[in-house]
């Protein structure tokens, strides 16, 4: 690699990075989509990584000069996002999801198998340089776990046999052929309700079907459930039982109510089962009657 360049994003290396003419055209197109040049930064970094396989210092200088921003600004973005590689990687990059849903379906066994096969830990590259392995957080394939991502393709509902077949294909025939071979697995291929699946039958066990008692489940105080602000995913808990008065100020950026949990008072309108069942430890085959009901 060339020497690192100077400040102000001006490439000084004798091996300055350059995109192919087609990719230069692509960058021109991307820039027209946004009112500012800087907004093209992440898409342009993608184009560069596609060509160079990682974001080298030369790439940073190139992008900075191309988008007329500082190299520091580019570097700040590169370091923020996990998918931009700050170091050289193997021919293929494998991500294994280890977040809860996948882990519940055996993702740990997948990671162990990959580490054994590649002879490296997550974060490393196999000795033959074919694969770099990374541990990923939830990749939006939770219903089809365990899963891996290879380059930009997903492989889901894995078991170790299928996993080896996929990796063999990448190793022997290259990425393009492997992607073709497994083309149909890339798209969302989990369950959806089969055609004609009826909604569940009316529920006799549930005290009152909602439709018949609309009044009783109407939100208690509209103000408390619809603060006039564009929403964010997790406002502080506002259980109905402690709903603020209708005149309460809208929840602001700094939510006030705090659940003091140390004494474990109920936060919402629910309560534990009687003490004897509540204390059941989570060991194999130790099931409370109530928990069994969850299965009916």
């Amino acid at each position, binding site marked *: 690699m060339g020497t690192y360049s100077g400040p102000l994003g001006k490439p000084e290396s004798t091996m300055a990075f350059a995109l192919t003419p087609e990719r230069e055209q692509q960058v021109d197109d991307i820039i027209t989509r946004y009112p500012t040049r800087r907004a093209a930064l992440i898409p342009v970094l993608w184009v560069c990584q596609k060509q160079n396989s990682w974001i080298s210092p030369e790439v940073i200088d190139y992008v900075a000069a191309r988008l007329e921003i500082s190299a520091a600004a580019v570097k700040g973005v590169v370091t923020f996002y996990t998918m931009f590689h700050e170091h050289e990687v193997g021919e293929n990059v494998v991500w294994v999801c280890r977040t809860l849903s996948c882990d519940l379906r055996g993702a740990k066994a997948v990671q162990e198998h990959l580490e054994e096969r590649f002879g490296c830990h997550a974060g490393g590259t196999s000795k033959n340089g074919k694969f770099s392995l990374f541990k990923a957080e939830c990749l939006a394939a939770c219903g089809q776990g365990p899963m891996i991502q290879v380059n930009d393709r997903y492989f889901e509902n894995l078991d170790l046999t299928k996993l080896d077949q996929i990796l063999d294909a990448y190793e022997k025939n290259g990425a393009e052929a492997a992607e073709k071979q497994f083309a149909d697995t890339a798209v969302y291929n989990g369950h959806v309700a089969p055609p004609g699946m009826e909604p569940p039958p009316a529920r006799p066990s549930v005290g009152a079907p909602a439709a018949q008692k609309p009044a009783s489940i109407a939100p208690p105080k509209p103000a408390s459930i619809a603060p006039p602000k564009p929403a964010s995913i997790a406002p502080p808990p506002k259980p109905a039982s402690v709903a603020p008065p209708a005149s309460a100020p809208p929840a602001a950026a700094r939510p006030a109510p705090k659940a003091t*949990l140390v004494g474990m008072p109920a936060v919402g309108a629910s309560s534990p089962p009687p003490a004897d069942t509540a204390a059941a430890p989570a060991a194999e085959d130790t099931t409370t009657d109530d928990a069994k009901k*969850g299965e009916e």
Partner: protein
Amino acid sequence: MAEPQKLLTARYDLPESWTLAVAEKHGAYKIARRALTMMQPQQIKDEVKTAAIRGRGGAGFPAGMKWGFLAPKPTDQVYLVVNGDESEPGTFKDRSIMELDPHRLIEGCIVTCYATGAHVAYIYVRGELGFSIQRLEAAVEEARKAGYLGERPFGKAYPVQVHIHSGAGAYICGEETALLNSLEGKRGEPRLKPPFPAISGAFGMPTVVNNVETIASVPDILELGGERWAKLGKLPGDGGLRLYGVSGHVKRPGIYEAPVGITMRELIDHYAGGMLNDRPLKAVIPGGSSTPVLRPDWKVDAPAADHPLHAWHGQSEIDVPMGVDTYRALGTMLGTCCAIVMDDSVNMVDVTRNLMRFYKHESCGQCTPCREGSGWFVDILENLCNGNGKVEDVELIASIANNVMGNTICAFADGMAMPLLGLVRKFREEFVAAAQAGGLPEGTRHDNPTRALVEGKAA
């Protein structure tokens, strides 16, 4: 007339459902054409308001109301930004729309742009979803060629452009202001609110930010009419059909379209086919990892006749209809409506550690309570799991969580602390047991029932 049971997923099963030819043959762009040529923007906004559609991205804010906050000055350029970041653990629903029916989303963008006065829509898709991006880009290209996007969609002099913008791996970019920063080519660090995006969003301009599913539902709302669409849901003030996801220990994990207001028990038993290996249900995280856990053996405690959940007093938590307001009354959140189901083999301390590792990895680092708190949670939970924990650690977790909540720029920290407090509250005995017994009990690891399956050694 029989009410439709499938709207968003109606075209999923068609061969080549993602192409313009197939989608259009089955109704795509019919509504956009009608909206642009025969309706006034205000009419569309009114229908969406009547439909009582609650945002599908997690917070459940009424979309019609959000659109109403826009008050652009004549010189302003309004933007529509569609949130396809889909990174909340357990959530995998938007992806099915983008991959199997991208034209539904683009049609929603055209109608929403017209209704809100925007001419440019950006669909921000998380970088990992290469396939979704590919399908969306191909669909945009098809729609442009057909003249549905561009200077005169459907002959109407109302230019609409849709651009696909790829992220690069950061959960926090799902938070709307972080997403806007990321869109502008910056680090995905959330902004202080106010100003809200409706006032100052993308590039400092008034901006509507909505989830993929929210926008994809807009054409159906216009097709059925807001009132009829609202009534598809079983709860007042929370209308329509929506996508439910189920993952974890069930027989048929996946995406199911159903009315708002089915119960968690119905979702698990009816749609997802029941529990894997018929083991008992122990706990379910109802709407993505940021929503507090439910326990089937906990009962609704709402004796007062005017309590919103009174009708379910004494029943299991999982028998309460799934709605934004009902779940909030229960002390949890509906979130993204994608449930993570766990059977009795899991240890909840182990589960908590897994989730907190996620939050530690994804905290953007701007606010000290969140950055440091997430690290502390992981350290303490590692200690508890590895046998180095103390009973006092359980209180310590709760006290740190209480100090993290509400003290940060965005809701990420609340989304971390709330489910943590819920887990500690509802499974306190397991945390204490881990401290006292010097680690996790033998045979309680969260991948126990499935490990053999994956290894191909299942009996």
